[in-house]
């Protein structure tokens, strides 16, 4: 296998150039897929025979919940890469992805609560999935708070990496213990998203939305990382020429 791409990732300049080329495509794909998915899900997908039209919230709730969990795993992967190979780019990715993850968790929680009102008759039920999501939100807050509290940039990144790795080892334990706790205390609650075999007209828009949200994540993450790299590498000569070009390009 060819590993040159991996070593090239160590160079912020290379990353800045290549990400500038990818960004329009990712952004375009995100807009097209998210629009397509929501129109499809809102207007064309058949309604659920049990939950009626409130089930259409699934097209927002499930993609954000998937994203919220996979961003945390991504944080830990970036943390390992940053700690083992001392790659600056991984540090930047770790700290820039954490706020996006927190936003996605917040959105998943909020849509879960709004969906819960017509389904359970209450805004908040201590359902296993919602509770696990709430804990995930706290884990994100911890990482963001630790990153902000440490003033030295490199130690902040390393500390966040250690915390993310400890967190990711804990997430399965938290998930299973919360599920267990839930089954012990509230037997047979109505699960929001578990249903007997969803027909293809229902899950096709969901798939579009999930891919769309991943493109959205990639685009926003690249935008945040590019800005952070410009700030961090302000002394490098390529950043100076880039800044001059940008500044003079728009008077």
């Amino acid at each position, binding site marked *: 296998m060819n590993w040159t791409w991996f070593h090239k990732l160590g160079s912020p300049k290379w990353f800045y150039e290549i990400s500038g080329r990818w960004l329009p495509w990712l952004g375009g794909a995100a807009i097209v897929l998210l629009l397509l998915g929501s129109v499809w899900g809102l207007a064309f997908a058949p309604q659920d025979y049990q939950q009626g039209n409130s089930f259409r919230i699934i097209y927002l709730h499930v993609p954000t919940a998937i994203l919220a969990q996979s961003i945390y795993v991504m944080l830990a992967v970036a943390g390992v890469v940053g700690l083992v190979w001392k790659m600056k780019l991984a540090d930047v990715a770790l700290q820039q992805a954490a706020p996006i993850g927190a936003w996605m968790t917040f959105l998943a929680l909020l849509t879960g609560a709004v969906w819960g009102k017509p389904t359970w008759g209450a805004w908040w039920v201590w359902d296993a999935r919602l509770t696990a999501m709430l804990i995930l939100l706290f884990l994100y807050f911890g990482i963001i*708070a630790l990153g902000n509290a440490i003033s030295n940039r490199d130690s902040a990144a*390393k500390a966040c990496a*250690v915390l993310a790795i*400890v967190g990711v080892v804990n997430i399965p334990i938290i998930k299973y213990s919360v599920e267990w706790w839930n089954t012990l205390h509230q037997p047979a609650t109505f699960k929001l998203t578990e249903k007997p075999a969803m027909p293809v007209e229902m899950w096709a828009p969901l798939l579009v939305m999930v891919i769309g949200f991943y493109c959205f994540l990639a685009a926003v993450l690249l935008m945040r990382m590019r800005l952070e790299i410009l700030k961090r590498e302000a002394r490098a000569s390529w950043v100076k020429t880039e800044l001059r070009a940008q500044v003079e390009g728009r008077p």
Partner: protein
Amino acid sequence: MSSVFALLLARESRLLFRRPAELANPLVFFAIVIALFPLAVGPESQLLQTLSPGLVWVAALLAVLLSLDGLFRSDFEDGSLEQWVVSPQPLALLVLAKVLAHWLFTGLALVLLSPLLALMLGLPPRCLPVLLLSLLLGTPVLSLLGAVGAALTVGLKRGGLLLALLILPLYIPVLILGSGALQADLQGLPTAGHLLWLATLTALAVTLTPFAIAAGLKISVGE
């Protein structure tokens, strides 16, 4: 290697004994928090008995967390942490001794105090073995996980609140299993499952967290 472990354990214990007031603080905190609940929810004994597993566990968890804030502080300030980091002995082993000493004098003390407070909340005496066993298995996990947070925040001026923010979400499985065991026992259900899971968590924490604590200390010292 084991002699270093024993030496360090003895040194830490001696240091802790020289400041008995600090040893008593978590215990007093534990007792006060337990006393707050009847005042807040009312003295109704039936209600207190159903709530008691959760109350004892939440109070113990907070007391351990509070005591961890200063775990590495004095060593950080007088520079002995730097000596630890550069010493030829594996740092993970040294911190394990440190946390073990801390647990012996706070965690274990909390475990010993807990039956008294649980009885005051109306927990029937037949539940005491499970209470002791669950706390005995759970508090080391609390100390070890908390030490990870303490290692990461030791260099910060106001680390206390941040420590709670970082560590409390990670405490949730221990809380669920510990209070779950006690609740099951209160209802006369078997508790072996809960306790075995708690023991698994303890084994995991003892083997894995020392490396995370060592990594955290290296980062904090290197800053």
